[in-house]
């Protein structure tokens, strides 16, 4: 497999219309999306987007309909030409590649999964799975061996000779995923890949993706408009609004400190126990009395609460991988924080630790 590399998006602009480049200054001077469209007939797609996508991680891009998510992800493999800006991959600027370089980049470094699956209806599941390899000219037999491996990994063994129309939506997207994985590319671009699926099947596919990512460590760009999905999958999340990045960071950072009212309005509904980690509410020093329950700083509040309740205690020590004591938490604080942002003082007097800028 190609070694996972990060992607550096720098000052990317996209303005749809005959003369997008000339409109950049107007937007910089403060013109909004609606005015630009009404007065000049140009559509603001992206404005000055800079995201540093870490290698081997899942970068989620979130936003409401029309916020520019699809536009952004299509710039990474240049299905859309930018108005300005650069996209750096392995020291090369994707926006300046020649047609031939771009074709090779798409063939060897990237693979894409689509919201509407976009399978080839006239090809069988196997033929769809090896589509990328057939474009690269890999011999059929070898391609099928590789395809078969990924088909079984996504749970489609025995369906090789079916046609897409014979499969349910969830199964079709498994084919879409297998097609992307078979390409052996370091980057996987997923544009609302699970949005068309029923909630249960969607959770299922998220699990499949997380499990695979656990061993593959690809650089995945995942688009969604669903915060729960973003928080579950994203190592990092960027939030778009009107083509602009309004906040980026880990899910926990965004839930704990939403950058504006727009973000807090939908962060509000989120299941905090599944996002916030023990580290955030931990206090320094050992618990006043040992309880036998120890937790990692990366444990989620939900897990912490369950561990303490199961052991019927109300305190737990927090230790790192090597067993070194970092601090402790109380059940009361844990539950309070799960329900709502909790600024009340704990029943102890020692100072709370800094809300750490967790995981990068």
């Amino acid at each position, binding site marked *: 497999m190609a070694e996972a590399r990060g992607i550096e998006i720098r000052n990317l602009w996209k303005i749809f219309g005959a003369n997008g480049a000339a409109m950049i200054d107007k937007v910089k001077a403060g013109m909004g999306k609606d005015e630009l469209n009404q007065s000049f007939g140009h559509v603001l797609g992206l404005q000055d987007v800079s995201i540093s996508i870490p290698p081997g991680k899942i970068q989620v891009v979130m936003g409401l309909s029309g916020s520019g998510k699809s536009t952004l992800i299509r710039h990474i493999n240049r*299905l859309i030409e930018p108005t300005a800006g650069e996209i750096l991959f392995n020291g090369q600027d994707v926006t300046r590649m020649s047609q031939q370089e771009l074709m090779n980049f798409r063939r060897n470094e*990237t693979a894409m999964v*689509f919201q509407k699956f*976009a399978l080839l209806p006239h090809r069988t599941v196997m033929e769809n799975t090896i589509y990328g390899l057939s*474009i690269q000219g890999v011999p059929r037999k070898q391609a099928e061996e590789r395809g078969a491996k990924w088909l079984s990994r996504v749970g489609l063994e025995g369906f090789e000779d079916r*046609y897409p129309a014979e499969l349910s939506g969830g199964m079709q997207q498994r084919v879409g995923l297998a097609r992307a994985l078979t390409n052996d590319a370091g980057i996987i671009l997923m544009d609302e890949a699970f949005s068309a699926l029923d909630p249960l099947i969607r959770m299922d596919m998220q699990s499949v993706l997380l499990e695979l990512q656990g061993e593959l460590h690809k650089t995945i760009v995942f688009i969604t408009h669903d915060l729960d999905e973003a928080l579950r999958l994203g190592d990092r999340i960027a939030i778009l609004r009107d083509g602009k990045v309004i906040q980026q960071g880990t899910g926990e950072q965004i839930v704990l400190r939403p950058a504006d009212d727009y973000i807090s309005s939908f962060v509000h509904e989120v299941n905090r126990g599944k996002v916030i980690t023990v580290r955030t509410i931990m206090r320094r020093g050992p618990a006043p009395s040992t309880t036998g329950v120890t937790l990692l700083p990366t444990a989620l509040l939900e897990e912490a609460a369950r561990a303490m309740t199961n052991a019927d205690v109300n305190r737990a020590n927090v230790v790192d991988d090597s067993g070194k004591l970092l601090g402790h938490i109380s059940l009361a604080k844990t539950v309070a924080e799960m329900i709502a942002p909790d600024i009340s003082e704990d029943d102890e007097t020692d100072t709370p630790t800094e809300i750490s800028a967790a995981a990068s």
Partner: protein
Amino acid sequence: MDLVNFPEMSRENLRAMRVAIDGAFRDFTRAYGETLEDIFLPVRILLDFLQRLLIDSPWILVLAGLAAGVWLLSRSWKITLGTVLSLLAIGYLGMWTDTMRTIAMVAVCTLIAIFLGLPIGILMSRSERANATITPVLDMMQTMPSFVYLIPVVMIFGLGNVPGVIAVVIYAIPPMIRLTNLGIRQVSRDVLEAADAFGASSWQKMREVQLPLALPTIMAGVNQTIMMSLAMVVVASMIGVRGLGQPVLQAINNQFFTLGVMNGLAIVAIAIVFDRASQAYGKRIQKHLEAQHG
């Protein structure tokens, strides 16, 4: 001013214009007629070969061959049986040879129409300019009374099979071109985007995505082309194409009612055979596009 009579060109000028154009065209015919005939020599050879093959081979073999062809296309016993029965009736009623001539003619015309129509249709689907230029030409080819373009064709090639083929192809090729163009344009953007994202070249996209997905529509074009070629067979008999059209023409001139009806029905019979076989084939190749959960 006289507003009742249209201010038309004077008679002398009109005649002079016609004479000039006709003269120029006659000169063109004299100068290039032979070259043009040479260009179409392969068509003549192919048609002659096919006609002789169908007429001179033992009828039972030809019958078996045609039935096998229909079976391969349609995979339907009903259609194949219908074909055999129609051909037996045609043979028994003394129209075997003419029918074979017509089948050969239609086959050659359809082949040429596909051979020319497919690339033209592809070109139109890829270039807006080609689309804008060729569309009016197709409109003209379809609305111009066919008798009109028989005249220059006959002036160049004389009477016979080759001018017949040209006339039939002009008449029958538009649906092939139009439906190829339409079929390719109808391919969903999602699928094309996927092909792009995986790095397909435009040739790979055309060969592996656009053409296969357009195939059902293209097949509908082939089907229409066949039907229109058959319809044109009677008209083409006026310029010396032999086959089922000639007896019909003869019947019109001499008021032979039965002769006309019999040959007319024979044309209808092979039209139905061609139509059902090609449509069944079209359906068969797109079976996998139908959802069939479960």
